[in-house]
């Protein structure tokens, strides 16, 4: 066991946006671990923590020095490393120098990419403190942020917000490193108001506790648990139950260093006429504007709200006054918008859609509504018990709420759909129609009509965005098309919908009347999202490959096939099938196309001269009707069992029969036989794509 220390790094910053924190600390920790790993420095448990004012990584049991290891470094290609006379070139000399080597140590070796110059160096025995001190500055500036800023004169020093202090330890000693404008020290700072004085840390182990004494709960998990517990307690005290909101809890946890909950009063709500405010509107207004929580009793919201403040020292009676006034002012706005909207109703807004551009170059919102209706009807036609009238009515009204006063207000845009449902309900639309309108933007619709509307809307968005030339690229996906396509897959699977991607896409493009040239690109995008969805569900990527190669058009069907594998994958059997099918695939690759299996000729049984040939063929013939009926009925478990019964015969065949004999007739006959057997497997999946270890 090597001698070890605890490493601590705290980057003290001015308040960093809530959504930046977790990705930043994750990246920071990953980079530190990578540097240590690459250098052969062992370490123990890693702790990642953050508050709006600090990014923290603590690594336990970090070795004092790294292990000695010999590394082989690759240099420039051989052709530029030596000149015509066989002497080392400037480039080669530079390469040697960069590794502290002499040209005498260089040698040339071939790898899979060609011939290169190499040098071997023993590295190690370096102090971990030196390693960390050398790499931390660049690691810190490599942390990715959506938006970065400068605050010093240096153009390359950028971060999410200014860095104001660095606290760094290796064991009991401050870990010193160069940093623009700052020197790492043993000092940190407590809560901005409750403990503004610096806090001196003597040892990393006391860091968390000392910060706690300074009114900072640096561990976000602890903060979150405390917030949740106190919110529940406060809700109970009001005589109700907390309405949980996971997203909001996450956000407020990242907005405070020391949470303190205050209960505010919407007193006189009834006097002010908010009693009729829909619950969602009330909740959204409070969540968006004050990041406040609400409590309910018997399904009704209480006239209170709970604010998670960042002040351990505040006076609730004093502080709550303005939270209440501002909340009431927002609710007054909402109430005003809703009253105005209800005066008008949704139907006149549907007419106004003709005057609103949906996507420039594609059409108006009115056109989208028309396409949504028709696409819904087309997709729904395949679904048993689908209520076309509900779908048509819901699609007709679906987009009208985008033109309401409420949804047009920045704070309430997230109520799109929900607002439509509320207005539709108040004007007496059937409940199913209201539900479908309300669920069009969710990924968990509660009926097939809702599901089809939700899918159609996203298909139109994806197609239109591709057509105007703005598909997602790299990390840029400004219209969240990936998320939308992922939602399509999720809805299809959850509701077990028999939809074909090709048919749905063709119909979408036909309606828009544009974008035939983008069809392939969109199709590939959707297929990729299907693949990712399946891989996300923990199906191994090679199984997904195997299934999508033969059955990728109907997402739910792919899912069923993969699920059948899941039951049978255990053990050797599956591996052997894959091995066998790889051999078959390799041997038939040049002669028998897998794309058009109906052209595969049947073998001539009169030409069989070994029993392994006839045995295999007879068995394949025998199972075929059952296999086809199993596939037809989507009983993929049964289909797989039938195919597995061929496996021993295939192995036997390869053990005993030599395929590539000189006699062309025999050879071709054997290839036909193998290709025919392969085709049986291809009815379920392309097993040759399954990766076999070893």
């Amino acid at each position, binding site marked *: 066991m090597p001698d070890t220390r605890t490493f601590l790094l705290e980057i003290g910053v001015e308040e960093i946006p809530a959504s930046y924190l977790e990705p930043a600390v994750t990246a920071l920790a990953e980079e530190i671990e990578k540097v240590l790993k690459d250098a052969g420095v062992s370490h123990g448990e890693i702790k990642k923590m953050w508050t709006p004012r600090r990014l923290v990584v603590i690594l336990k049991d970090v070795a004092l020095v790294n292990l000695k290891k010999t590394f082989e470094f690759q240099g420039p290609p051989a052709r530029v490393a030596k000149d015509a006379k066989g002497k080392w070139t400037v480039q080669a000399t530079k390469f040697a120098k960069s590794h502290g080597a002499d040209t005498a140590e260089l040698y040339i070796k071939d790898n899979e990419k060609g011939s290169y110059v190499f040098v071997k160096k023993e590295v190690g025995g370096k102090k971990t403190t030196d390693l960390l001190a050398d790499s931390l500055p660049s690691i810190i500036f490599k942390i990715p942020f959506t938006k970065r*800023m400068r*605050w010093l004169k240096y153009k390359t020093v950028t971060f999410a917000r200014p860095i104001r202090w660095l606290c760094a330890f290796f064991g009991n000693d401050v870990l010193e490193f160069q940093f623009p404008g700052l020197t790492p020290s043993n000092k940190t700072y407590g809560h*901005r108001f409750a403990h503004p004085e610096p806090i001196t840390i003597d040892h990393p182990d006391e860091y968390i506790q000392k910060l706690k004494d300074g009114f900072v709960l640096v561990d976000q998990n602890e903060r979150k648990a405390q917030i949740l517990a106190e919110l529940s307690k406060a809700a109970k005290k009001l005589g109700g139950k907390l309405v949980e909101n996971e997203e909001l809890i996450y956000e407020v946890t990242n907005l405070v260093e020391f949470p303190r909950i205050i209960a505010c009063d919407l007193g006189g709500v009834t006097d002010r006429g908010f009693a009729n405010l829909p619950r969602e509107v009330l909740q959204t207004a409070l969540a968006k504007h004050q990041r406040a929580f609400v409590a309910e009793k018997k399904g009704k919201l209480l006239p209170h709200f709970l604010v998670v403040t960042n002040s351990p020292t505040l006076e609730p009676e004093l502080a709550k006054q303005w939270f209440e006034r501002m909340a009431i002012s927002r609710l007054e706005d909402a109430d005003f918008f809703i009253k105005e909207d209800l005066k008008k109703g949704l139907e006149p807004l549907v007419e106004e859609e003709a005057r609103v551009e949906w996507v420039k170059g594609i059409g108006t919102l009115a056109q989208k509504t028309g396409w949504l209706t028709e696409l819904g009807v087309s997709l729904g036609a395949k679904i048993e018990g689908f209520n076309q009238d509900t779908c048509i009515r819901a699609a007709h009204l679906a987009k009208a709420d985008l033109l309401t006063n409420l949804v047009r207000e920045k704070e309430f845009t997230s109520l799109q759909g929900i607002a439509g449902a509320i207005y539709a309900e108040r004007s007496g639309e059937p409940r199913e129609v209201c539900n479908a309108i309300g669920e069009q933007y969710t990924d968990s619709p509660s009926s097939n009509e809702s599901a089809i509307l939700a899918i159609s809307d996203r298909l139109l968005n994806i197609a239109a965005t591709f057509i105007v030339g703005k598909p997602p690229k790299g990390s840029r996906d400004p219209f969240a098309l990936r998320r939308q396509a992922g939602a399509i897959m999720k809805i299809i699977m959850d509701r077990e919908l028999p939809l074909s991607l090709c048919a749905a896409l063709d119909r979408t493009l036909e309606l828009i009347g544009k974008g035939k040239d983008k069809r392939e690109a969109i199709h590939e995008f959707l297929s990729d999202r299907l693949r990712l969805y399946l891989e996300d569900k923990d199906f191994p990527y090679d199984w997904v490959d195997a299934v999508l190669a033969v059955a990728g058009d109907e997402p739910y069907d792919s899912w069923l096939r993969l699920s059948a594998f899941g039951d049978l994958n255990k053990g050797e059997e599956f591996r052997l099938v894959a091995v066998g099918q790889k051999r078959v695939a390799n041997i038939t690759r040049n002669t028998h196309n897998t794309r058009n299996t109906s052209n595969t000729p049947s073998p001539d049984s009169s030409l069989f001269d070994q029993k392994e040939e006839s045995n295999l063929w007879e068995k394949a013939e025998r199972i075929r009707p059952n296999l086809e009926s199993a596939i037809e009925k989507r009983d993929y478990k049964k289909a797989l069992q039938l195919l597995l019964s061929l496996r021993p015969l295939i192995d036997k065949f390869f053990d005993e029969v030599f395929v590539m004999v000189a006699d062309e007739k025999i050879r071709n006959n054997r290839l036909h036989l193998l290709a025919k057997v392969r085709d049986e497997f291809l009815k379920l999946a392309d097993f040759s794509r399954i990766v076999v270890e070893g």
Partner: protein
Amino acid sequence: MSKPLSFQEIILRLQDYWISKGCVLMQPYSSEVGAGTFNPASFLKVLDDKPWRCVYVEPAKRPRDARYAENPLRVYQHWQMQVILKPAPEDAQELYLESLRALGIPLERHDLRFTEDDWESPTLGAWGLGWQVDLDGIEITQFTYFQQMGAIDLPVIPVEYTYGLERIAMFLQGVDSIFDIVWGEVDGKSLTWGDVFYQNEKDFSAYSIKEADIDYLRRAFDHYEAECHRLVSKGLLMPAYDAVIKCSHYFNLLDARGAISVTERAATILRVRKLAMAVAKLYVGGHGEAEDA
């Protein structure tokens, strides 16, 4: 409890505070602007690499916010206190918090937050990162580290604090409406914000929403746009910049009159932005210290 600070006392305290921190006291600019950032003491002064610290009050005129004096929180013209510190000091946040203490706000007893808010002025070709400062849930200040102005990467990063004076006054005085803010006293008799500006709000609302002559505003916009380019070519910086301000205000009025469609809106913003960029370039060229973006 002692009498809360009046509006004029808030202005005086903040001015005094920032003067004590090395700022020079400037005055509002003599033209209609939508935000204090348009004042040349901000827009032009941040473009070079020389140290600069200033404080001033600026009336922000926003035709789209005109509400006929009927909305307690939204008005055609509100007052901003603008502070620029260049370079931004290390203790930019602490200095700001101290200014609130100078107003007698016991920060420990309230909930003060620096809430994510990325500031951007498309017409000025400007952006920066920082926060809105929320005091018990009310936004009282915009706090921004400028990064670009006139589409030019700033050679020295300044910090800008824009105080919403009405918000702070409402907070301190405990009133629910801008119109009820006590502005000061005339001969021992208190004068409210509404006493001073009610007429202003009524009339400018009617003007902004109904009466402003759209044809004239369009012509004026075109005229000042051409004039700006012409003046830039003559090297006349300040008159050229005044033309940018005029265009921006005419755009705001046209927008409030509902005379600008969604697509036209983006295009018009771009036209103003081009002017701002040309002027910024002229200023930087004349000073020769900043880099072009």
